[in-house]
């Protein structure tokens, strides 16, 4: 049945709309209720929720970009907090996710942006250049309303307040007496100095705020993969695969 295929593909609302449009005699009512219930159970949200629609668009974008995934679904845990779960059995050693190069963000993606190229040409000193260029790529795309990466950016975290750099005063007070206070101050100061150096070298970099730069840089750090690509060690961001990169709990 076409609705089942749409459901399996993660096109939940398309499956429901199809069933409803063919439900004049009420024969699909039970199926509609079942899909809505499964959506709530498997995705953690009702099908009409705006975040479900974002997940649907993202998974469709991944598939259209050539990604292959089997028996995995993104699950909503809370605002800016998602996971990936098995929606069927995955065998030992089975490849269940395959993301092609065109959907992968590399430092080169950032160097090839207009502003990234200027930063590179300026030879300004940056810390961990691969992080800087991936961060630049993401920020450039976030500022572009026509970005081809929009479906990914729509499910990308917007907040970083669970990172120590962005702790509120109460959370910071809990760290008093630990070396973390000094370390955090030092890291914040380093990023701030780096940001100021980049603005001095390339004034257009001001289009990104310091807070935006810091927040995106720490989000990139927490999601980056180290891989060997054609015998070269590379750091990359991989949509969908980047969500379950962490261990069991939300460490970051």
């Amino acid at each position, binding site marked *: 049945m076409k609705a089942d295929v749409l459901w399996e593909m993660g096109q939940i609302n398309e499956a429901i709309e199809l069933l409803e449009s063919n439900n004049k005699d009420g024969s699909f009512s039970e199926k509609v209720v079942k899909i809505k219930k499964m959506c709530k159970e498997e995705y*953690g949200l009702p099908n009409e929720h705006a975040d479900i629609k974002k997940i649907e668009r993202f998974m469709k974008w991944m598939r259209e970009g*050539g990604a292959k995934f089997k028996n*995995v679904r993104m*699950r909503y*845990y*809370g605002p800016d907090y998602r*996971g*990936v*779960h*098995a*929606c*069927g*059995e*995955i*065998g*030992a*050693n*089975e*490849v*269940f*996710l*395959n*993301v*092609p*190069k065109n959907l*992968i963000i590399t430092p080169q993606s950032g160097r090839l942006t207009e502003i990234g190229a200027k930063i590179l040409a300026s030879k300004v000193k940056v810390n961990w250049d691969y992080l800087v260029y991936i961060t630049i790529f993401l920020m450039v795309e976030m500022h572009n309303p026509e970005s081809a990466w929009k479906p990914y950016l729509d499910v990308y975290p917007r907040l970083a307040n*669970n*990172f*120590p*750099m962005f*702790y509120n005063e109460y*959370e910071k007070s809990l760290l008093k007496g630990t070396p*973390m206070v000094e*370390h*955090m101050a030092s*890291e914040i100061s380093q990023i701030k100095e780096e940001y100021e150096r980049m603005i001095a070298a390339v004034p257009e970099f001001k289009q990104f705020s310091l807070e935006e730069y810091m927040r995106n840089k*720490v989000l990139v*750090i*927490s999601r980056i*993969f*180290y*891989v*060997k*690509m*054609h*015998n070269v060690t*590379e750091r*990359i961001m*991989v949509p969908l*695969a980047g969500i*379950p*990169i*962490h*261990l*069991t*709990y*939300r*460490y*970051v």
Partner: protein
Amino acid sequence: MLVFLFILPIDMFNHHYEKVGQTYWQYSDKDDSFVVKAQRKIDLGDAVSANVFIE
């Protein structure tokens, strides 16, 4: 040290799953794509954690 700063747990008990299926991941030069595979069988409903890198 920076990495250590970023992994300080703040929300350790706020988890939404009971079991986690561990995976391997690598870049496949042959397919020019990033691949993730299960280390062992992952059951329906398990969270998937991509935390092992194989060269």
